[in-house]
């Protein structure tokens, strides 16, 4: 089975989430190759899980002041602050039939590729069900999955460095919680590649690329014209709209 790998790209939040859905549709409609893509978010953004309340989870006013985009994902899970300099995001899309049937098992299946990538940097990470990867018990990667029209999409982030203060500004944490103590507590629960390795962000990408592609027949590619145009449609009709982003 051949895979398409879309090398690390930079997009804004609306483009990133539109591309994921356009790829999902493309695989469902045309049998396009299963696809792995890597991307960063510029400007930095907050994404929330599909069932979360935007107003409850996100300090939207503060995000606007800071130039941070806010978006609702099609996947469940929690709110994530995607710091442009602080993480690499991946998406993996393919027919559900090529992944383990069970939800937990399929998370583990893909998370093992991340763990393999991190091990190349000398970082010993492990899977923490349901959807996290941890190092020494601290979260280094969060992941979220959906299955639609026979296609599985899993996307997730690998933290490179953490800017807890901005994260706390962007997320709706009550002011009394934004204390040195709360920040210290968040730093105790979350870790990042830069705390365990001197690797650059570029090196992290190369390691993840190796971890995801090891043993696979793959070729580097990009979006096809139809996928690109569908992504643009989805961006305008869904992902940039308040009707979607503020639907709960």
């Amino acid at each position, binding site marked *: 089975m051949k895979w398409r790998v879309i090398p690390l790209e930079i997009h804004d939040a609306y483009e990133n989430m539109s591309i994921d859905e356009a790829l999902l549709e493309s695989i469902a409609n045309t049998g396009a190759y299963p696809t792995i893509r890597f991307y960063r978010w510029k400007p930095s953004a907050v994404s929330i*899980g*599909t*069932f*979360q*309340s935007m107003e*409850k989870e996100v300090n939207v006013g503060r995000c606007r002041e800071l130039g941070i985009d806010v978006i609702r994902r*099609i*996947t*469940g*899970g*929690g*709110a994530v602050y995607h710091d442009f300099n602080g993480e690499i995001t991946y998406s993996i899309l393919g027919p559900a039939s090529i992944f383990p049937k069970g*939800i*937990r098992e399929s998370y583990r299946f893909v998370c093992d590729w991340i763990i393999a990538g991190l091990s190349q940097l000398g970082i010993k990470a492990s899977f923490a069900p*349901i*959807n996290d990867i941890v190092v020494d018990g601290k979260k280094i990667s969060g992941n*979220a*999955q*959906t*299955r*639609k029209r026979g296609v599985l999409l899993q996307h997730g982030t690998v933290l490179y460095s953490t800017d807890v203060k901005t994260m706390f500004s962007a997320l709706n944490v009550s002011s009394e919680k934004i204390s040195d103590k709360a920040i210290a507590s968040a730093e105790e629960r979350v870790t990042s590649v830069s705390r365990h390795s001197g690797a650059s962000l570029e090196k992290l990408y190369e390691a993840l690329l190796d971890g995801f592609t090891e043993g696979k027949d793959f070729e580097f590619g990009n979006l096809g014209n139809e996928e690109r145009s569908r992504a643009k449609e989805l961006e305008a009709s869904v992902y940039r709209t308040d009707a979607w982003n503020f639907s*709960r």
Partner: protein
Amino acid sequence: MDGFAEQKVPGGKLVGVRLRYGKTIEKVLITGDFFAHPESAVYKIEAALAGMPASATSKELAERISSVAKAEEAELVGVTPEAIADTIKKAMTA
């Protein structure tokens, strides 16, 4: 009346319920960082809860949620019908 409650599901995720109700449940919005496959099952559960008597017990609400989840062949991850039902009852007393 409007109500809201939220709780952490033991061993699972966070689930919240925003509720409008009188003698019957008028509108339910289920929020949180849980997963549902397919996601559309959650919207159908919300629709199926509307119209139930506000006096319905947690058990009756959970049964309605379970029956929709089953009909949709849905898998709830990080949340259970019982946790959603319990949060609905909490939202009525909040």
